Structure formats: C-alpha cells, structure tokens
C-alpha cells in the first residue's frame, strides 16, 4: 500500500509539470506535426521523431518530452484517415480498421466511420492512461512473469485470429498465414545468420521485407487497382450521409465493447516483444465474437471499427511499460523515443531505476500521452468531415497521388529502389489473393508474427530442455505456468469458435465462384513458392539447424494444406466456393481490365529506375491524368505541379531523398532530381 501512497504526490507533481501553458503549447505543436505526417500512410511517427531528435539535446526536458509525445501519440489516431477512406493501412496500428472502415467509406459513411474511430481512439487512450497510472506501480513483476513460453503463447493467440479471418475455406486461411510467415522468414536467419530464400547477390532480400512494404502492398495496391478499374469515386453515394454525430452515437451504443477493447489494448501493449502489432487483430476478433449478428462484418459494421480503434491508442500507453521500465522498446517509434530521452540529458534513463527515482517524470509521460490523444482527436474529428469528401472525388484523379505517396513511404523504409519493386511484387500477390478470396488479413498476421514466434519458440525449447534436465518438475513448471495454461485455453476456444463462425464472416465481402482454371493456377503458383521455401530452408547445414527448423516446419504444414486444397479442387464442382474468383462477376465487373491498370504502375517503376523518382513522377502523373483520367492540359498541368511540389516539400522537411535511377549514375543533378 505504501507504494500507492507514494504515488499520489508524484501524480500531483506530474500534473503540475504538465499543466503549464508552454508545455501544453509544445504538446499541441507536436500533435500538429504528428498529424501532418500521420495522415499520410506509411510514414508513421518514426520519420517525424527522427526529425525532432537533433533539437532535443539540451532542451528543457519537459518541453522536449511534450513535443515528442504529441508527435508519437497522434499517429495511431491520424493514420485512421488512410485506413478508412482509402483502405490503406496507415500503420501497423490500424490494419484491422481497414476491414470494416473502408466498406463504410464505400457506402458513403466515411465521416461516420471516422468519428466513431476517433471517439474510440480517444476513449481508448484515456482508459489506457488511467489503467497505467495504477498498473505501472505493480507492472514490473507482472511483466517479468512473461518469459519465453508465455510470450510464445501470446504470439500463438495472435496467430489464432487467423481462424476468424480465414474466410469460407479455413485451409486457405491457414495457407495464407503460412505464406505470410514464410515471407517473414526471408533474409538472414536470426540465430546463425544463414540465408533463407535469399542470396548475397540480391542484397536487398538479406535484410528481409519490412512491414510497411508488406502492409501497403497487400492491402493498398489491390484496393487502388480495383477502384481504378471501376473508374468511379470511393463512395457509392454522392451525399455523405451519416455525419460525425452519428459516429459518436455509434461509439456510445458500443461503449462496453470499446472499454473491453481498450483494456485488451493496454494489456497486450504491456507485453514486451510483440510491440502490439497484433493488438488490433485481437480486438477485431473480440468484436466479431461478441456481436450477435455477424453478417455485416467486412461490409461496413461499425463495431469492426470501434474495436480495433479503441485498442490501438490504449496500446501506445501499454507499450510505455516495457519501454520505460526495461528499456525494451515496443515499436520503432518507442525506440527513437528512448534515444531522445537520453538526449534530453537530465540524467533520466529508461530502465529498472526509473520508477524509484523518477515516478513523477513517468507519470508526466503517461498523462502527456493521454492529453495528446485528446488534442489530437479533437483536431481529427474537426477535420474528418472535410477529409471524408475525398471519397466523393472520381478515383482516377486520386489514384496517381495516392500511389505517389505510398511509393515515397515504401522507399523510406530501405532507401532502395528495390523497395518499390518489393511493393509492386507484394501488391501483385495482394491483387491475386483478393481476386481468389485468400485471406489477406491472415497473410499479414502471419507475416507480423513470424519473427516473434520463431524467436520465442527457439528460446523456450532451449531453456525448457535445460530445465527438464534439472528435473521433470522444474521443466513442467517452466513450460506450463498458469499464464501459459490460461493462454492455451483462450487460444483453443478462440480457434474453435472462430472456425465455426468463420464461414459467416466475410472480412472482404462476398466473392462469387466460377471457372476452375484461374484459381487452380494460383494455387499451383503458391504451391511452387512453398516447395521452393521448403527446399531452400531444408538445405541449411546442420551447424545452423536452429535457422532451419522453423521455416521447414511451417512450409511442411503449408505444403500438406495446399495439397489437400488441391485435391478438394479436383473433386469439387466449379461452382464450389473454393473456386471463388472476383473476375467472374459482381463488383469487379470493371470498366478497365487488370493488366493495363497494373501497367501504369509498372510504368512508374521502370521509369523511376531510369530517370529517378521525381522526373518519372512528372511523366507518370502527366500521362496518367491526360490519358487515363482524360483531363485537359491546363488541369493536368496544375495537378502535376501541385503533386510534385507537395512531394518535394515533404521530402525537404523530413530531410529525405528520392530513389535515383540510371540517369543519376551518369549525370549529377541538383537535389530533388538527384
């Protein structure tokens, strides 16, 4: 009890520190900067934080802190714009929001979806802060209870969400997740550094693929292409029915769901090593399981927006625990946050001693985060009506600019032209998965959890082996701790319930069937990749066997599942759901066919590799707007100039470069063209 009595004065001091006009002003400034970056998908807070770093040294600690926290806190709120309005996951925190938010925007309810999302975010952030205020005092021992077996089970629990999102054919969901895991294994192995599915001749792959690229590729590109082919606006109705008040009402009607998901967010966020990258999926799964009428999920169910959005801001608060108490950052932005704290140079360093020596400081961080949420949410709601109007614009006018931004964002992850190639390749996979109704969420969950599952399973088996040598009891108590047992039960229940319900949850809408040839071809292509992955990783020599076990195991499961599906396909009639193919009819009865649309993007890619990004962009935008969108020269000129100046301005403020091409290796050009 003493600890709580000591906490009260610290809490008071923290509030005294925060509630100064200058501190609040810096916080608001940070929030505004974060908003400017956060609304653009894929850039996230990391770029913004790196921008702030050099100014941190010697700054008044509390002001520097306010600026930084403002910037970090608003990103999971503002990235909702892209998720809902364009179907582009703005960051890993809002992947699940896409599933129902985007259909809402398509139904002309963009503003309603946004304000429901923002209200949930705000609420989640506040619940998170409240929970943390008490929890942080006792968090240390709780976090220490999570050893490798527990962390592994949490990862498995995350993976079990695949069950709900698998779609109508569960095995296809399993394969999709497995392929996500295998793609996550590409690069140098984590234990012995053996190369997996890559070679030193192709150095880009040895680093593995980044989440930004996989996320944008698998969700954004297929949506952009599909909308372009239909050649209309995102929203089906011109009037944006359902204004922001409706969204707030929606939230109020689902406040308990929101509260539960907020708690899920904080708790999962607290667990170090997972970085909360699966929180939104778990919350989405929870929202689905607790909804009686599941038929609307994937078609614009507001609960599918409220769930994940309540959790993702709460997660940021939870993520502070491992960051501050153990110095283990939960995410990329938290990592930079740690670095910046050190720069503030007031002797405060994250780690075990922070709570004892600087509790007031810790509380300032927690509540600055909550306050930043409030400011950010209010700003976002204020903007949402206007920004939602984007969904009524003809998509052919929007698409080239969206593509410009995600290309730029993708390039920032590795500063390599190959980033764009990877984006394009994953995008193509995404298009095909969407077409043949293979669960893209399952794929993404697999990709995100690939590394944690592999690491924790390796650590857990190794340590368990040593414990078992000490004695059966020591081993069993390590492997089957109470937390592990509870998690196993939850996971099993979730899988069983999920599979039973999966048939009704069409996370990506209904897909008609017809024709055997194309779906079988796609399966064979996937099978070829699986066999390649299996062969490639199985040939890792014995001395590096730890790098081999996991991908071989996953590839084997995938192989078996794929063969079963193949057999089913041979037996089933061509009207069976297993042959789902969007091209046969329905919404994708398109004005334009796939290949010419894709060729536009390939055109930008090839041109970039020749002339560098900015020149290529100029040519791409001009020809696209002239030919595909059919604009006059004057309008085209205006749009192109606006787009390119915007791009240059962004890169200039963030201190970033553009991909250079062949031209640049012969001629030296001034900066934006360089």
């Amino acid at each position, binding site marked *: 009890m003493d600890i709580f009595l000591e906490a009260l004065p610290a809490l008071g001091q923290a509030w005294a520190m925060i509630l100064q006009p200058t501190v609040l002003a810096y916080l608001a400034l940070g929030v505004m900067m974060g908003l400017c970056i956060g609304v653009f998908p894929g850039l996230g807070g990391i770029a913004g934080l790196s921008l702030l770093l*050099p100014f941190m040294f010697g700054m008044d600690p509390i002001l520097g802190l306010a600026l930084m926290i403002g910037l970090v806190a608003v990103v999971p709120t503002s990235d909702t714009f892209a998720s809902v309005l364009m179907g582009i996951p703005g960051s890993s925190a809002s992947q699940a929001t896409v599933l129902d938010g985007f259909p809402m925007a398509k139904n002309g309810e963009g503003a309603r979806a946004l304000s429901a999302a923002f209200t949930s975010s705000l609420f989640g952030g506040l619940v998170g802060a409240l929970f943390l205020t008490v929890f942080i005092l006792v968090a240390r021992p709780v976090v220490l209870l999570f050893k490798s077996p527990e962390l592994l089970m949490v990862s498995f629990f995350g993976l079990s969400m695949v069950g709900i999102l698998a779609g109508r054919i569960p095995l296809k969901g399993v394969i999709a997740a497995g392929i996500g895991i295998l793609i996550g294994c590409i690069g140098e192995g984590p*234990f012995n*550094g053996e190369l997996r599915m890559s070679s030193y001749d192709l150095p880009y792959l040895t680093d593995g693929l980044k989440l930004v690229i996989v996320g944008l590729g698998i969700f954004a590109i297929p949506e952009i292409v599909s909308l372009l082919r239909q050649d209309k606006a995102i929203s089906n109705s011109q009037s944006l029915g359902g204004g922001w008040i409706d969204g707030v009402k929606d939230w109020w009607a689902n406040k308990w769901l929101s509260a539960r998901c907020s708690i899920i967010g904080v708790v999962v966020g607290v667990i170090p090593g997972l970085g909360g990258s699966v929180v939104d999926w778990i919350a989405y799964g929870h929202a689905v399981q607790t909804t009686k009428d599941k038929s609307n999920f994937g078609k614009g169910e507001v609960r599918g927006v409220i769930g994940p959005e309540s959790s993702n801001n709460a997660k940021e608060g939870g993520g502070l625990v491992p960051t501050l108490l153990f110095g283990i950052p939960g995410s990329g932005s938290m990592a930079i946050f740690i*670095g910046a704290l050190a720069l503030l140079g007031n002797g405060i360093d994250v780690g075990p001693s922070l709570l004892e020596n600087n509790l007031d400081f810790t509380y300032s961080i927690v509540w600055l985060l909550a306050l930043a949420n409030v400011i950010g949410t209010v700003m976002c709601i204020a903007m949402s009506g206007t920004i939602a109007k984007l969904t009524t614009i003809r998509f052919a006018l929007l698409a080239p600019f969206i593509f410009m931004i995600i290309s730029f964002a993708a390039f920032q992850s590795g500063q390599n032209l190959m980033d764009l190639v990877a984006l394009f390749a994953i995008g193509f996979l995404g298009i095909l998965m969407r077409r043949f109704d293979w669960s893209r969420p399952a794929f993404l969950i697999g990709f995100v959890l690939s590394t944690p599952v592999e690491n924790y399973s390796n650590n857990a088996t190794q340590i368990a082996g040593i414990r078992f040598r000490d004695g059966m009891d020591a081993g069993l108590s390590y492997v089957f701790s109470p937390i592990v047992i509870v998690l196993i039960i939850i996971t099993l229940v979730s899988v069983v319930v999920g599979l039973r319900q999966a048939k009704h949850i069409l996370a990506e809408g209904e897909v008609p069937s017809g024709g055997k040839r194309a779906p079988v071809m796609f399966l064979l292509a996937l099978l070829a990749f699986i066999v390649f992955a299996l062969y490639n990783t199985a040939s890792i020599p014995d001395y590096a066997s730890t790098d081999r076990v996991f991908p071989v195991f996953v590839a084997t499961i995938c192989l078996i599942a794929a063969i079963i599906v193949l057999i089913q396909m041979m037996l089933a009639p061509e009207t069976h759901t297993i042959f789902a193919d969007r091209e046969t009819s329905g919404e994708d009865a398109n004005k334009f066919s796939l290949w010419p649309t894709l060729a536009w993007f390939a055109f930008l890619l090839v041109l970039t590799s020749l002339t560098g990004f900015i020149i290529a962009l100029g040519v791409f935008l001009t020809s696209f707007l002239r030919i595909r969108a059919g604009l006059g020269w004057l309008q085209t000129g205006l749009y192109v100039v606006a787009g390119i100046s915007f791009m240059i301005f962004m890169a200039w403020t963030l201190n970033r470069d553009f991909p250079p091409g062949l031209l640049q290796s012969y001629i030296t050009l001034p900066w934006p063209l360089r």
Partner: protein
Amino acid sequence: MKLLPSISRKVAIALGVAVTTVMATPASADVDMTGKTVEWIIPFSETGGSAKWANFFAPLLHNALPGKPTVVVKFMPGAGSTKGANWFQKQTNGDGTVMFGSSGSTQFPYLLGDPRVRYEYKDWIPVMATGTGGVAYLNAEDGAKFDGTANMLKGKTYIYGNQGATRLDLIPALAWEMLGMDVEHVLGIKGRGDGRKMFESGEATIDYQTSSSYLKGSAALVEAGKAVPMMSWGSLSADGDVVRDPTFPDMPTFKEVCEATEGCEPSGDSWDAWKAFFVAGFPSQKLAFLPAGTPQDIVDTYVNAFAKIKAMPDFAEISEGRLGKYPMYVGDEAEAALATAITVPDSAKAFVVDWLKSDFGVELDK
C-alpha cells in the same frame, strides 16, 4: 604480448601528432555540413551498449561538426551485427553522411573468419574509438555462494542469453568455462538488453553487460539485492597487464577470480586466447568509421569534430556517468586502436576456433 607496450607508445606518439594536427589545421579547411543529415549506423538494436554510446555522442557531434548537420542514430540489427557491417561495406558515398559504429561483436566474427562476414575493416576509415569494460553477475541465490572464487559455483547449470557464439559473448563464455562453471547458452538474443530482461525474469541465471549498460541497468538490480556482481573483465595497463577496471575499482577482475579458483590458471593456451580476444574486444571496443574512399577533407572534419568533443572541459565528467571511465581515441589514435582491435595472434585464433567447434558446433576456417 610484447606487442602491447609498443602500441601504447604508438598511441602516445599518435596523440602528439593528433594534437599538433588539430592545432595546425585551420578551421576553414573543414567541410561545411550545413543542412546535411548524418546517419550513424549502429548494427545493433536500441537496447544495447552501442546504442547508448552512439546516443551519447550524436548530439555532441551535431554541435561539433561545422554547420551543425542533423545527426541521426540509425539501428540496423541483424545476424549479431554482421548484417549492418555488410551493409556498410557497400557504402561508397564519400560525402560524410554515413558513419558506422562497430563493436566487439562486429570485430570477433571478422577475426574468426566467419563465413557471413563480407566486410573488411582495413577498408574503412576510423575517426574515433573508445574502450569499455564488462561485468559478469549472478542471481541472488547463486551470488550468495560467490566468495571471490568460483569454487562453490561448480556443479550447477547456469543459463545465459547469448547473442551468438562468435560474438563478444565469447569473452564471458570462455571465462565461465575456464572457471569450471557449467553454463548453457540460449542463442539468438537480440541485444544485451533482452539478455538482462531474461535474467530479471529468472529465465537466465547469469548475465554480463558492458560497462555503460551495467551502470544504467544492472547496477540497480545489484542495489535491490536481485543480482550479485561477480567480476569485471578488467582493463589493460600500460605494460599490457590486466588490472582492475577504474570504473569498478572494488570489483575483482576475471584474472583475480581465476587465480583464486581451483583448476583455473591465468596462463597457458586458454588464458592467452582469452586475453587476446579481450584486448581485441574491450579496450578499443567501439569504433566510429567513415566508408572507404571518403575524401581526406571530410575525414579531417570528423577527426577535428571528435577532437573538439574530447577537449570539452566537462567531457570527462559527463562521459563518466554515461560510458564509464574509459579513454577516447581520435584520428591517428583511433587507427592505432583499430590495429589493436583487429590483431590477434594465430595461436589464440586457432584455440578459439577449436573451442567454438567443440562447445558450440560452429564451423569456422582456421
């Protein structure tokens, strides 16, 4: 070990030269870096000693470089730092916007001829180096049995979160083995910060941290009675002996503990190998490099900037709390430090290669 005194003499001469160079070089010769962004690549995660080291120097460097360029520390962890180093080897832009921070864990695979090493230290241009030390510690229960010797620590299995057999972690691994302790290594840990969390949660029962991480993280565990320091690796005296680390003057060195422990001798093949790798890995552990082919004026700019940092009146004081009491080398001294770091007698290398094969199953060419 006659090599060492000559190196310290070289360092002394180099120091003289460096000081004269700094004094003689007019500031106008420095390249103005206004508006540039310097990316300082650290091939580890954000939680380890290298991160603290770079985060400490980055703002100072920002202030010391002409034109105050933005200095960003960029983390590129993977394959125990060979990933980042391989990446740096391919960098050729000689405009001073990319810098690399290597650590003992980058040096060791290079020295041992690890097949994944695609980098060549001799290509790179060292501009600054600092040394560090390390401390090994035990959990409270086993720590109670520690009496300055490892005699009572035998006959029990310890668990250690290891970043990789060929990494800097081979120093504690070999030391514990020489003391006759039975330590099991859980491989594939991402950084020593994760190792410390494993220790705190009780999954690992023995741990080691470099000095700065020990001061910031583990010392609090010792105060709380959750950990007991066992030994420091020591530091190197002018005539090449292992002596007590000035940062931890009250802590026995591994050499002392070994002398006092039955069956452990600070002489012979294993000791020579341990010492050779310790010398390569700790006293000149962390180096900052510019890529191969960087023009001399840019190299000078960096050397001068680091010299300026070193000459700050309060530098010793602020660095002591963050990094511990270790020397910092600039310019030619850094080159001498690099020479120490990448020179290991063939006999020591052969011993370690054999030992890694028998204990870890790691196949390396001798």
